[in-house]
């Protein structure tokens, strides 16, 4: 069994290395696409968020000043946000011309209304061309509003607990404590991909994972090809048990998949200076991702009757997983819903693992969850595919 498995795997790899299109998909295409997308996202030398906002302060009260000076122009955002203080008409004009990414309109009477315990509205205008910067602007406003609400609540709670009107000294002290609260929003919020990292460090692993699915899909597809060309019958007529045929093909796909990702790691590191993080963790994440890719593509292929049909099914599934999983765009730039949906894909989990490795450092413990989840994807889909593949082989 073992000998037959190794012979079939070696034969499959020999065939794969003879096939130029296979080599392009496994090694060249991910590298080139990572380079192109990396350049598109920031000249290939880095990715960091920056935005230009306009602010219209018609209130000129203490709470508006605190938002403008303490939050928007505060130390937490000083490196990434450029602020332009303008009038309402100019703000709308700047938005229309695309010169600012978003504008905050603070109405007159904002501070007074909030201090009376009433409601007040900060309007955020977003430029259509900058959805991410617009989303950040909205989050900043929502964060400040939430902090004002919490502060007001805590002050009222303190006063209610005393059971009497506050003295002047107490009122002053509560006011100072509330005003001294931390600015509510900082850019570094722990979200995936929001932390600074080189484009090549993101799109290197990202493209490696995307093309990995195409690379390993040949394993299951080759069963269909061998069935069509008659060699499967000859294999089964030799001393090879059906299990050896399946194991040989899985082994070849695994070896090629791992090699493809590791070559991508080496190439992006040498050429673009990409940092993939702790080597042991990268290997673990690579192995689990390859298992997931083999399991899913094998399952998809076993649903097909011909190798042409299998190609179609595989492409559909691989592109869907890639789009949902964040292979083509930073996960952090995806809307919330898509970020949550990405967790339904092994691509999304693997990318989280690679991003965490770079942004947070650490080793195996950092990628434990992504490794476990991607491996589980592989084992579950692989088990179902194994049953179906056996039926396909035995006939």
């Amino acid at each position, binding site marked *: 069994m073992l000998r037959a498995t190794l012979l079939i795997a070696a034969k499959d790899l020999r065939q794969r290395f003879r096939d130029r299109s296979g080599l392009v998909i496994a090694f060249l295409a991910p590298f080139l696409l990572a380079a192109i997308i990396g350049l598109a996202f920031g000249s290939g030398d880095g990715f960091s968020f920056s935005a230009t906002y306009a602010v219209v302060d018609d209130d000129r009260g203490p709470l508006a000043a605190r938002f403008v000076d303490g939050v928007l122009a505060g130390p937490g955002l000083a490196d990434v946000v450029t602020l332009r203080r303008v009038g309402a008409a100019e703000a709308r004009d700047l938005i229309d011309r695309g010169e600012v990414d978003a504008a905050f309109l603070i109405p007159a009477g904002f501070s007074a209304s909030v201090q009376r315990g009433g409601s007040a509205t900060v309007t955020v205008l977003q430029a259509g061309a900058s959805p991410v910067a617009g989303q950040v602007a909205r989050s900043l406003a929502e964060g400040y509003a939430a902090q004002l609400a919490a502060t007001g609540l805590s002050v009222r709670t303190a006063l209610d607990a005393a059971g009497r009107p506050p003295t002047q000294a107490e009122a002053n002290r509560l006011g100072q404590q509330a005003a001294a609260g931390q600015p509510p929003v900082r850019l570094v919020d722990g979200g995936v991909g929001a932390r600074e990292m080189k484009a090549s460090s993101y799109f290197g692993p990202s493209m490696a994972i995307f093309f990995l699915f195409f690379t390993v899909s040949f394993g299951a597809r080759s069963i269909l090809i061998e069935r069509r*060309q008659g060699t499967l*019958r000859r294999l*089964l*007529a030799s*001393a090879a048990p059906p299990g050896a045929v399946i194991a040989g093909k899985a082994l070849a796909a695994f070896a090629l998949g791992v090699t493809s990702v590791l070559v991508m790691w080496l190439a992006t590191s040498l050429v673009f200076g990409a940092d993939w993080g702790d080597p042991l963790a990268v290997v673990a994440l690579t192995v689990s991702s390859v298992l997931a890719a083999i399991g899913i593509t094998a399952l998809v292929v076993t649903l097909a009757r011909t190798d042409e049909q299998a190609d179609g099914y595989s492409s559909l599934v691989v592109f869907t997983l890639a789009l949902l999983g964040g292979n083509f765009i930073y996960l952090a730039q995806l809307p919330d819903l898509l970020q949550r949906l990405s967790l339904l894909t092994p691509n999304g989990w693997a990318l989280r693992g690679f991003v965490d490795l770079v942004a947070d450092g650490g080793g195996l413990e950092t990628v434990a969850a992504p490794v476990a989840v991607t491996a589980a994807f592989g084992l579950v889909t692989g088990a179902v595919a194994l049953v179906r593949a056996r039926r396909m082989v035995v*006939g």
Partner: protein
Amino acid sequence: MAGAAEPVLVCRDLRRRYGQRLAVDGVGFRVDPGETYGLLGPNGAGKTTTISMICGLLRRDGGEVTVAGASLDRDPGAVKAAIGYVPQDIALYPDLSGGENLRFWGRMQGLSGHELAARVDAVLEVVGLADRARDKVADYSGGMQRRLNIGAGLLHRPRLLVLDEPTVGVDPQSRNAILENVEALRGEGAAVLYTTHYMEEAERLCDRVGIIDQGRLIAEGTRRELVAQIGERDRIELAASGDLVGLAAGWRRTLDGVDEATVVAGGLHLVARDGRRLLPKLLELAEAAGVEVTSVEVLEPDLEAVFLHLTGKALRD
């Protein structure tokens, strides 16, 4: 060739059902060492199903298979190791060279090292492809691929070589080369199970022939034994056009000596006693029926006539 030696292949009461259809119904025969056994029957008769069961490629619904003393049920590995299987379609890797293909299939049959290299060289010589060993199979002609396809089944010197219609779709020159290869194997003492629907191949190659039709083995024996079943009767083949069905029925009804009269593509086949004497009367009735006869051939009794006699239809219907 059947003798006292232990048979290489014994199969008994093989059965296989596809849905409601019984594709193989109680087929059984044996093949002795050095013997070439032909399984002769039209397309769809059950030949490939039978050998697929013998080679362990298809589950049996019943019956037993023993190859070189090993039971397929108890020791399938030993049975497979004793068989060299040559499938009907070319089963090679087109992107590998001829030599690489043979080395792979040799290794799959347990060969390695010097033995593998020697056997690959020997087989390339036998199939006449030694000078093309480094070329990709995709660049071979159809006939060369067929020869290599057979060669891949010979590598491990199998006790039983199973050839499933190896000459289908092959040009006459390559076909002759393939038949010569099979004849050479018989000379080397291998037992050969050869399926075909070409009567002339069965007559040329096979020591014994089993005639299979609709999943059942309807006759078995040497050519002489089989022909004797229909007595001293001739086979008459006519190329003709017109109301052939009516003419065939008329011959059977009115002419003494016509045992079988079957309409085939482009004419009629007859089995008749003393065909040459009967010929003028046959043509006279054809003319009267308005049937135009363009050629007539009277043949000595052969396996085609046997098949016609046994089944009432031509082998290649």
